């Protein structure tokens, strides 16, 4: 640029180059200093854009002897310092224009003599060749950097299934190659979490985490939230204060953005198997830093990161279901062994005369044996029911059934167990007849009642049956050990239990079966617990169907 200034006798020069289809000021020079930059032409100060535009369009050289009296005078006058002479030379390759060399002289009218213009024209030819070479080199260098980044990121991502750690590592790889700062946000349990950040100045990373905490609001105009909503990448290479203000909510957020010096930014979705799992943000402090080409690279990085998250999650899910199955098998075997233990001991003891076969002993042992057979039958029924529900073969025979009568039957059946555990059971029932399957409804009440007795800690249990707005309602309230609030959403799932299997037996299927039957009737079941040791309340609502005859 200095040579150009000298050759032309100009006191200021700008090199405008086309990149990614748009003109950028890549270098600005005065007689004392040359700077390298990358400012979009539209944003560059003090340049006769009209002149540059004309040269780019036509490929002709423009020489203004006296800028103030030319057709482009409007611009010259708007310029803060009066420009006297302007020279704009196209830089051309055989097939296209690649840029414009723009020179000014603010002191002298008619500064650019014919001779100087000729040598400058020659110089522009050299510039274009040199430029072409450097562009090719730059292209290759960029390509290499991109390949390297993707390779490093991929190997970091496959290294471990702990994606929180690998995502933080990928963010670090992207800085400074792709941006001054990078952040990864992932949706976990419906909440957006900032998993990793990287900044060319690590001292700023705390601020980036703070920035991440502020746009959790799903209505936020923040680009990360937008990208999560639309699943489409977002690029803004010119971020000014006004835009920063529009994209953030509240002064604190805008202040963080300003403190980080956000001037160019892109956000890409972390997209895998049809779902947006999160977003990756690339931010720089230099306007115009991020181009469409960078966005493509960032999107590729995002795709790979998303695949890693997806794989890690699938693996965790399959591990969890294997664990649930193993736990179920161990619980199921314990549940089957318990009645078998008393059953086999009574039979053995009678056979080898450890217990003398007196009428009283026979009566006691047989009644124990009968209870164990009932327990085993119930376990087998439960397992069969679950396999029917899983296979979607729950056959219901609808009949006019009184829910209150079913509840009374069940409570009667549990009377022995209630008295053994010292539990008082209070019934508050009015007759509510609906079209239900009697056996299935009995199972629902049995399972909820068994649950209340098991976790009721011997404290009173209240059962209420009534019709509410034409719907049958059953409420079973105990005052036992309660359910931790984080377990409530899970207790109706298969094999689930809110307590340790080591301490409370049961297959963990009762409430799952109850819910499946209730839903087959078109009803709903809800659990509520104020907290540990404050009991639990189960509320069942059942539509009554078409009832024949008076209730």
């Amino acid at each position: 640029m200095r040579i150009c200034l000298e050759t032309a006798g100009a006191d200021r020069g700008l090199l405008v180059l086309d990149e990614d289809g748009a003109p950028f000021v890549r270098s600005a020079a005065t007689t004392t200093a040359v700077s390298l930059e990358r400012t979009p032409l539209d944003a560059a100060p003090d340049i006769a854009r009209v002149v540059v535009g004309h040269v780019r369009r036509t490929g002709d050289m423009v020489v203004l002897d006296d800028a103030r009296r030319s057709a482009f005078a409007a611009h010259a006058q708007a310029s803060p310092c009066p420009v006297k002479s302007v020279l704009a030379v196209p830089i051309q390759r055989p097939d296209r224009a690649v840029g414009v060399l723009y020179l000014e002289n603010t002191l002298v009218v008619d500064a650019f003599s014919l001779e100087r213009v000729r040598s400058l024209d020659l110089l522009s030819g050299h510039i274009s060749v040199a430029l072409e070479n450097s562009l090719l080199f730059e292209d290759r260098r960029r390509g290499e950097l991109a390949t390297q980044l993707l390779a490093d990121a991929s190997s970091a991502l496959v290294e471990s299934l702990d994606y929180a750690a690998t995502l933080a590592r990928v963010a670090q790889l992207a800085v400074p190659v792709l941006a001054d700062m990078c952040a990864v946000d992932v949706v976990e349990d419906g909440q957006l979490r900032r998993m990793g950040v990287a900044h060319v100045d690590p001292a700023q990373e705390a601020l980036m985490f703070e920035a991440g905490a502020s746009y959790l609001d799903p209505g936020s105009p923040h680009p990360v939230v937008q990208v999560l909503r639309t699943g489409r990448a977002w690029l803004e290479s010119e971020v000014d204060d006004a835009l920063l203000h529009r994209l953030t909510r509240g002064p604190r957020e805008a202040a963080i953005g300003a403190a980080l010096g956000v001037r160019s930014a892109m956000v890409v979705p972390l997209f895998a198997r049809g779902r947006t799992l999160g977003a990756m943000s690339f931010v720089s402090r230099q306007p115009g830093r991020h181009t469409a080409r960078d966005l493509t690279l960032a999107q590729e990085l995002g795709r790979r990161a998303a695949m890693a998250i997806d794989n890690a999650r699938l693996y965790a899910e399959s591990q969890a279901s294997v664990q649930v199955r193993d736990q179920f098998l161990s619980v199921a075997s314990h549940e089957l062994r318990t009645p078998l233990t008393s059953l086999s001991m009574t039979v053995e003891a009678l056979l080898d005369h450890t217990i003398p076969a007196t009428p009283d002993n026979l009566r006691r042992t047989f009644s124990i044996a009968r209870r164990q057979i009932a327990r085993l039958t119930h376990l087998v029924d439960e397992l069969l029911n679950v396999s029917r529900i899983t296979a979607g073969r729950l056959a219901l025979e609808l009949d006019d059934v009184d829910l209150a009568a079913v509840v009374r039957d069940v409570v009667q059946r549990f009377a022995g167990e209630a008295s053994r555990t010292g539990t008082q059971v209070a019934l508050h029932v009015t007759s509510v007849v609906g079209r239900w399957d009697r056996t299935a409804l009995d199972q629902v009440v049995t399972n909820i009642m068994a649950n209340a007795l098991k976790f009721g800690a011997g404290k009173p249990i209240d059962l209420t049956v009534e019709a509410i707005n034409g719907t049958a309602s059953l409420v079973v309230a105990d005052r036992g050990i309660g359910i931790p609030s984080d377990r409530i959403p899970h207790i109706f799932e298969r094999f689930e239990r809110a307590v340790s299997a080591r301490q409370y037996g049961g297959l963990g299927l009762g409430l799952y079966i109850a819910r499946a039957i209730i839903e087959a009737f078109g009803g709903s079941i809800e659990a509520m617990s104020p907290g540990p040791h404050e009991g639990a309340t189960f509320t069942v609502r059942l539509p009554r169907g078409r009832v024949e005859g008076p209730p």
Partner: protein
Amino acid sequence: MNHGGTALVLVVEDDLDIREVMRMVLEASGYEVLEAGDGAEALVVARAHRPRLILLDLMMPGMDGFQFRESQLRDPAIAAIPVVIVSGGGALPQKAAELGAAGYLVKPTDLQRLLAMMQDLCRDGARPRVG
């Protein structure tokens, strides 16, 4: 069966039916039986009566068998009472070794093995207290 005296045995088991059968069988075999439905109750009963032997279930509500054994070993008054694990869970030999149990029996329990093991343990060392 003759033990030359009545040994006091504590059955720690949450299942009421198993407890009832154990009581019938052990009483018929000449033992005196104490019962506890969980670990906490077992500690109280053991401290009060110093049984000759403890039959311990592992999976119980409230204080389970593992926690009971920990507390038992911390209390010098009852630490020396031998414990036989009676459980339906897996890996019993390892669990019994970890808990320093005198023996273990898998549920459903073989009656003759139970009685033989009890006889062995009640014969060793001090004579069982005479009721």
